[in-house]
């Protein structure tokens, strides 16, 4: 069985996003970019499934600019077998990304696709669910545990009131939540080896997929700023302020 994992190149989670002065988006020149943290968890899970003997190949897929090759190389250094970049300089909407994933899935026929629950740049939380519809593969989102059970998966999911478990038939699409695993670091020799692994680059135009969508970003603004508050000297002063100044208790 093949596993496809999605690896998106995003602004590093430690870097605070800055809005461009022309309001067209976020400043991404000369800032640290990394693999979306949920996708590191996806890669790790795929590798563990392969190591447990339930899969034979892990393919890391990224859709984006040429620099996304670095993100794929990171996945390869962690242990993925090969990579595919669908190259585009456009910022695509989730529906278009999902259609491009479907295009690859039709070609590769994976038994399992593992994506993050959310990309920490657009915060959409959409692609896994959309891809399940487009491919007819089962859906198991926000996974905190994935167990194999013959031709089914038992997936424990993080929901608002706690945990839920469902059983889905394979092929399936799983999206990762934070508690699924702790991703490994790539070791230096593996980083060297990863440079030799196969990485195919497909220009988006060659896929024949219509990536136009009905959603456009008109402008991007800074959020309203909070005024800095005061430092109180004691708990008594705090409670007094909450009661008599803010009147919230």
């Amino acid at each position: 069985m093949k596993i496809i994992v999605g690896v998106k190149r995003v602004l590093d989670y430690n870097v605070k996003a800055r809005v461009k002065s022309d309001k067209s988006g976020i400043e991404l020149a000369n800032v640290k970019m990394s693999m979306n943290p949920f996708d590191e968890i996806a890669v790790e899970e795929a590798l563990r499934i392969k190591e447990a003997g339930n899969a034979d190949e892990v393919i890391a897929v990224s859709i984006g600019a040429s620099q996304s090759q670095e993100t794929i190389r990171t996945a390869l250094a962690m242990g993925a077998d090969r990579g595919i970049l669908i190259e585009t300089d456009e910022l695509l909407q989730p529906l278009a990304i999902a259609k491009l994933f479907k295009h690859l899935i039709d070609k590769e026929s994976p038994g399992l696709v593992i994506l993050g629950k959310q990309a920490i740049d657009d915060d959409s939380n959409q692609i896994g669910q959309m891809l399940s519809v487009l491919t007819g593969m089962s859906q198991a989102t926000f996974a905190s545990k994935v167990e194999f059970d013959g031709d089914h998966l038992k997936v424990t999911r993080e929901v608002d009131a706690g945990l839920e478990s469902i059983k889905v038939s394979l092929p399936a699409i799983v999206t990762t939540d934070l508690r699924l695993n702790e991703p490994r670091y790539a070791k230096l020799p593996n980083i060297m080896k990863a440079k030799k692994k196969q990485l195919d680059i497909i220009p988006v135009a060659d896929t024949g997929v219509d990536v136009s969508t009905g959603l456009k970003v008109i402008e991007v603004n800074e959020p309203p700023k909070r005024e800095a508050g005061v430092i109180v000297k004691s708990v008594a002063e705090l409670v007094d302020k909450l009661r008599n100044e803010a009147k919230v208790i």
Partner: protein
Amino acid sequence: MSTLILAEHEGGELRPATLSVVAAAQAISGDVHLLVAGKDAKGVADKAAKIAGVDKVLLADSADYEHEIAENLAAMIVSVADGYSHIFFAATAAGKNVMPRIAAMLDVSGISDITEVRSDDTFVRPIYAGNAMATVQSSDAVKVVGVRTTSFEAVAAEGGSAAVETVEAAAISDQVSFVGQELSTSDRPELTSADVVISGGRGMQNGENFAMLDDIASKLNAAVGASRAAVDAGFVPNEYQVGQTGKVVAPNLYIAVGISGAIQHLAGMKDSKVIVAINKDEEAPIFQVADYGLVADLFDALPELSAELDK
């Protein structure tokens, strides 16, 4: 134009989130309809019909909807979706699980987590953990939207008198089945709709120490939340997590205890009306968003706070 909303409910009661989604839908032209899908859900549908501003309730009463299985709910929604210009969901775990499916089934974009309705086709949504607000416009025939419930003031649960119309249940998926759940039981207010929230972070050191937060929560009728670090360390379960990738809260009062104030945590609480931070490190970034900061050891401050609240 009209808007269809997937009502969320459990234990025979509507979730508060639905009242906020109705508020968001009222900013759109036309009628507001609610779909109540559930097992023995007539009672919930009757309650939904009383919500102020709801024009019609569709009831799909079937054991197939006992659990919120995305495939089944999505098929149900699409079976009644004809004619609606907008389909709205709460941006809850359940809503996020279904919303993008509807978008894909209708071949339109999904619009996640809106915080503002500018017009029938234009919405504002946070991106990059709320460090930027994107104004987006949709030319799709149907706008499929997730609503950040803390950004819309809930409408009144009473005052309406909509008709309840029964609809056929849709076909269910044989690819997925419900196995079980481990849900938290608490008498406290629900985290995302509580007036007061007190959250603990890594500084709490262990799960037992959260009893100190529970004690204060009882006195303030507050919900208890946590940072990711506290959840990852196993102090409290996942449903406590506040932040970019957990729950978004916006209470009247948010008290952060032993939380440093990482971008990802701030994303989930910075729209609270009043923020209090208790942290022993005066440099902690949480103080930059706090209205009242107390630089103190939480193991001294919490017992004092508990005593002070009794006065």
